């Protein structure tokens, strides 16, 4: 997919608003948190959760919609945004079956417990990176292969793709619509999706998902499966949101509640006087 980049020449009438995102030599904004940071910060227990690395897809979304805003276009009108104002990404937590047997099914697990039932679900898609095979398969499975996606332990088909294993595909993302699968999972906790390869047309042998480029081994973080959920959130006060999202000791950093004791006393006195 193409990346949208914020060029220095894109100074529209609203460019005064633009964020000064430091740029890397490649012209891609070097967003401050691109590298996992703050390893032990504010976590007295010492066991720090590594900060999530923004997926290139999310960075691309951000760049595209930011540019649209600068041009005065409401990004929620974009077809890709599905009229959502919030787009949440969940990285796959599933693990590969290590057995050498052909991989016919692959499970993808997502912790979607942070989704709120107050938000209107307007779309969801599973993005699977299909690796290009390093060498041409000596005996590719004949015919076309159908990739089908189901909720785990369910016969209800969510979406399907047809691939031709004989053609060496360029590496790329296969996108499956999983809106219905997520809609019927409320209340949201875990979402388990299963990719199945039911075989080609006719009586052909079942393809191995690894040979089709869906194996997990040797994948970079950026190549892991991504569940992207599109929601419309009711308009909320920023601080209300901060309280919800930052339920950690770090919550107080920079929040309006963090007022020195001396100042708090002044407020009390002033309130009494009023």
């Amino acid at each position, binding site marked *: 997919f193409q990346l949208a980049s914020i060029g220095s020449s894109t100074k529209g009438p609203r460019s005064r608003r633009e964020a000064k995102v430091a740029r890397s030599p490649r012209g891609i904004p070097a967003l401050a948190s691109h590298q996992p940071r703050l390893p032990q910060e504010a976590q007295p227990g010492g066991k720090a959760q590594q900060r999530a690395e923004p997926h290139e897809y*999310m960075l691309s979304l951000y760049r595209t*919609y930011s540019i649209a*805003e600068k041009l005065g276009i409401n*990004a929620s009108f974009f077809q890709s945004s599905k009229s959502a104002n919030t787009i*949440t990404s969940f990285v796959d937590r599933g693990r590969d079956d290590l057995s050498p047997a052909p991989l016919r099914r692959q499970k993808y697990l997502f912790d979607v417990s942070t989704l709120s039932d107050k938000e209107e679900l307007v779309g969801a898609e599973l993005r699977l990176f299909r690796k290009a095979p390093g060498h041409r398969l000596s005996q590719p499975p004949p015919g076309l292969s159908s990739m089908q996606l189901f909720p785990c332990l369910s016969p209800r088909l969510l979406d399907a793709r047809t691939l031709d294993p004989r053609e060496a595909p360029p590496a790329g993302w296969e996108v499956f619509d999983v809106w219905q699968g997520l809609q019927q999972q409320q209340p949201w906790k875990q979402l388990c999706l299963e990719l199945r390869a039911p075989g080609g047309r006719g009586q052909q042998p079942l393809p191995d998902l690894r040979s089709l480029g869906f194996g997990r081994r040797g994948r970079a973080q950026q190549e892991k499966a991504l569940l992207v959920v599109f929601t419309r959130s009711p308009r909320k006060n920023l601080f209300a949101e901060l309280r919800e999202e930052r339920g950690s000791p770090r919550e107080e950093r920079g929040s309006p509640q963090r007022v020195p004791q001396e100042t708090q006393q002044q407020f009390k006195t002033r309130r009494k006087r009023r």
Partner: protein
Amino acid sequence: TAFANRHGKRHGKKSRLRCSKKPLHVNFKELGWDDWIIAPLEYEAYHCEGVCDFPLRSHLEPTNHAIIQTLMNSMDPSSTPPSCCVPTKLTPISILYIDAGNNVVYKQYEDMVVESCGCR
């Protein structure tokens, strides 16, 4: 009575700052929010500053109430304060952040940038 010079400004009286949009640069890093906000790390939010005194200019889009309050204030400053210089149009910005579950989220936050100021 004040005489207007050729620029339309009044002589003999120190002119007060009229209600208008002023720069307000927000740096999330300085606010200590860079531990959850990925981008943007800074942006121009603007703020409204200045007085809403009589006569109110039309570009300040005063409400009828603000017109009355301003008139009352001009006649008797002790009866009521002048109307307030506040944002009349705000626009959203896109924010990319990390939520409580360590997921990366894109969100369009409403009312983050002052587009215009007026008297209310």
